[in-house]
C-alpha cells in the first residue's frame, strides 16, 4: 500500500484559517424507519481527493447521492463553495458524478456522450467540439470518438465516463466506485492516472469505495464509514497507523488484536496487561485511561518479527507455533498459534530468493514487536 498525496506540503485540513470547499453539516438520511446516514459532518477542502470508505450498506453511496442531489437529506445541510444546496435539483448543481455502472448512454457515440452536458449548457458548437477533443486526449481516448459504448472495453468505458463527468469542469466531482469494474492490474494503473488528471484540473474529488487499497492509493484523506456514521477521518497513514477503534483497525488492512487492561499509565507509555497475549504489552502513549480499564492493543501483522533464533532487543516478545503458511510471492503470511490458543497473523517480506522456506509448519518460533508498533484501541 502506498500513499500518493499530492499535497504533502499543503494540508488545508490542518490549517485552521482555511475555509472548507464542501461542508456537510449534521446530515442524516432516513428511508422510512431505516437510518442510512446518521449525523455526518465533514469539511472537505479544495483540491482534495476525499474517499468515503466502508462496507456495503454503510451509507457512503447515499451520502454521495445527497451531494449530487438525487437524494434529499432528512436533516442537515450541504454547502458547496459557500452555497447551501437545499432545494437545488441535480441539473442545477455544480457537481458531476461518475456512476458506478458508468451509465454511458448506449444510443450515443463516445463523442455525443461527452458533449451531452456541454450541449445542455448551450455552448457554441465549435467550443463543444474543442472541449470534447481536449478531454478525450486527457483520458487518452482520441480516436474513439465515433464508437458506441458497447464497442469499448471496460477500461475504455471507464475513461469515457470520467471524461463525460469532467468535461463540464465541475467544482466537485463525485465518483461512485470509479474503478470497481476494472481488473486488478488495470485498476492500479488507472488509480495513478486519476490522481494525475485530478492534479492537472484541480477539481475536488469525493470518491466512494469499499476497496481500502483504492482508498489508500487515491486519497488525500479518508473518511471511514460504518452503519451510516463516520468513525474516523484522516490521511491514509493516520488511518492505518493510528486507527481510532477496533472497526477501523480491522477494516483497513489486517490486524492482531489483544484484549487486556491498563496496568500502568506512564509519562510516555502505557502497559497493557493482556491475558490473551500472556504478556504485558508496551505501547507508546496514545490514550489516557484509568488503571484497570478494559482496552485492546492492535498490532499490524507486518510489524511483528518472526524468527527461530533470538530476536534481540524488542520490547514485546512471545513464542508460538506455526500453524499455516501462505506464500504470496512478495511476502509470506504466517498463522501462529500461541500456547494459550490465541491465533496471530504475521507477514514477512520475502527478502531473499530461496526454494525452501527456513520456517515450516509446526516450527516453534519467537515473535516480537517494537515498542512503537502497537496502538491502543478502544471500543
Amino acid at each position: 500500500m502506498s500513499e500518493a498525496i499530492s499535497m504533502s506540503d499543503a494540508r488545508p485540513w490542518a490549517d485552521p484559517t482555511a475555509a472548507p470547499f464542501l461542508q456537510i453539516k449534521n446530515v442524516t438520511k432516513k428511508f422510512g424507519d431505516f437510518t442510512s446516514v446518521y449525523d455526518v459532518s465533514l469539511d472537505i477542502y479544495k483540491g482534495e481527493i476525499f474517499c468515503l470508505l466502508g462496507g456495503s450498506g454503510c451509507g457512503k453511496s447515499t451520502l454521495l447521492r445527497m451531494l449530487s442531489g438525487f437524494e434529499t437529506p432528512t436533516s442537515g445541510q450541504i454547502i458547496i463553495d459557500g452555497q447551501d444546496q437545499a432545494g437545488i435539483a441535480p441539473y442545477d448543481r455544480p457537481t458531476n458524478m461518475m456512476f458506478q455502472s458508468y451509465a454511458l448512454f448506449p444510443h450515443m457515440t463516445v463523442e455525443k456522450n461527452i458533449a451531452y452536458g456541454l450541449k445542455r449548457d448551450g455552448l457554441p458548437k465549435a467550443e463543444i467540439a474543442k472541449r470534447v477533443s481536449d478531454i478525450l486526449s486527457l483520458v487518452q481516448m482520441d480516436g474513439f470518438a465515433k464508437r458506441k459504448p458497447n464497442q469499448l472495453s471496460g477500461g475504455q468505458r471507464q475513461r469515457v465516463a470520467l471524461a463525460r463527468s469532467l468535461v463540464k469542469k465541475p467544482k466537485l466531482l463525485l465518483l461512485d466506485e470509479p474503478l470497481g469494474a476494472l481488473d486488478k492490474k488495470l485498476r492500479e494503473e488507472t488509480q495513478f492516472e486519476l490522481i494525475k488528471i485530478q492534479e492537472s484540473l484541480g477539481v475536488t474529488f469525493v470518491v466512494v469505495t469499499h476497496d481500502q487499497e483504492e482508498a489508500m492509493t487515491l486519497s488525500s484523506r479518508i473518511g471511514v464509514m460504518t452503519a451510516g456514521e463516520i468513525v474516523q477521518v484522516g490521511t491514509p497513514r493516520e488511518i492505518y497507523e493510528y486507527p481510532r477503534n477496533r472497526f477501523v483497525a480491522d477494516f483497513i488492512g489486517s490486524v492482531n488484536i489483544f484484549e487486556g487492561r491498563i496496568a500502568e499509565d506512564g509519562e510516555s507509555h502505557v502497559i497493557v496487561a493482556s491475558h490473551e497475549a500472556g504478556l504485558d504489552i508496551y505501547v507508546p502513549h496514545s490514550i489516557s485511561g484509568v488503571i484497570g480499564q478494559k482496552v485492546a492493543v492492535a498490532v499490524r501483522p507486518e510489524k511483528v518479527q518472526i524468527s527461530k533464533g533470538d530476536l534481540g532487543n524488542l520490547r514485546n516478545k512471545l513464542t508460538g507455533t506455526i500453524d499455516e503458511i501462505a506464500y504470496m510471492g512478495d511476502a509470506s503470511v504466517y498463522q501462529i498459534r500461541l500456547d494459550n490458543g490465541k491465533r496471530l497473523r504475521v507477514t514477512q517480506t520475502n527478502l531473499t530468493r530461496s526454494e525452501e522456506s527456513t520456517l515450516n509448519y509446526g516450527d516453534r518460533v519467537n515473535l516480537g514487536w517494537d515498542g512503537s508498533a502497537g496502538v491502543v484501541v478502544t471500543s
Partner: protein
Amino acid sequence: MSSLPLGSRIGALLGRMGLKGRVLVIAIPTVWLLIFFLIPFLVVAKISFSVAAIARPPYLPIVEWVDGFFRISLNFGNYLFLLEDPLYVAAYLGSVKIAGVSTLIALLIGYPMAYLIARSEPDRRNLLLMLVVLPFWTSFLLRVYAWIGFLKGNGVINNLLIGIGIIDEPLVMLQTDFAVYVGIVYTYLPFMILPLYANLVKLDEAYLEASADLGARPITTFFTVTLPLSLSGIIAGCMLVFIPAVGEFVIPALLGGPDTLMIGQVLWNEFFSNRDWPIASAVAIVMLFVLVIPIMLLRWAQSASEGENQ
C-alpha cells in the same frame, strides 16, 4: 411392465426416433405454423389465381387433367381488377390511414400509461398491469357493442353532455370515422401498453440520473434519453396495433358509417355477399403484402436499434 414414469418412457421412445428435446421444442411450433398458417395461405393464394364460377366451391380449378396432361391455368385478372376498380385502392388506403392514425393515438395515450406503470412501486405494477389486461376478460364483441351505447344519439355521453348543459343537440358520433377511431384505440391500447411497459421497466434509472447530473431538465431527458432508448418498445407496440387494425372488420362494421371504407369490410363483402372467392382471395393476398413489407422494414429497424443498445 416398466417402472419408469410415463413421461420418461415417451422421452426415451422419441429419443430413439432421433427427436431430442431441443428439436421438439422448435418442431412443434414449426409444424403448427405450417398447418395453420402456411397451408391456408397457399390455399388462398391458389384461389386468387382462379376464375369465379357458379359452382361448389365457387371457382374453377387451376389444375386440370386434360388429355393425359396437367393443364395449369393461372388467372391474373383478379389482381388487375383490384387496380382497375378505385374502390379497392381507396379501401386499402382508408385502412392504412385509419390504422395509422389509431396507432399514433394509441401511442400517445399508451406511452404515458406504460411509463407510469413502469415507474410505480414494484408491488403496484402487477395490479396496474392487470387493470390494463382486464378488458380482455370480457368478450371483444360485447365491448364494441357497449361503445354503441356510449356513442349513440341518446347514449351515455350525449345524455351526460346535454344533462350538464354543454350542448343542446346530441352530437353525431356513432357511424362516423370518429367512432371507429375510438373503437380501435380502445380495443388495441393494451397491445401498445404491454410491449412499451416491458421496455420501459428495463430502462436503467442510472441513465436518467446521469442525464440530470449533466444538466438536463426532466423534459430534455425524456426526449434525449428515455424516448430513444424505448424505440424498440415503440416499434413493437405500433406493430401490434397497426397490423390487426388494418384488417379490422368488426369495429368499422359496428361503429363505422357508410363512408368508413376499410379493406376488411370489402373482403367480407366479396366473400359472403358477392361470393367471388377469387377476388376476395386476391384482396387478402394483397393486404398481406401491404402489411408484410412495412413490417419487415420495422423489424429490421428494431433489430438494428436493439443491437446498438446492447
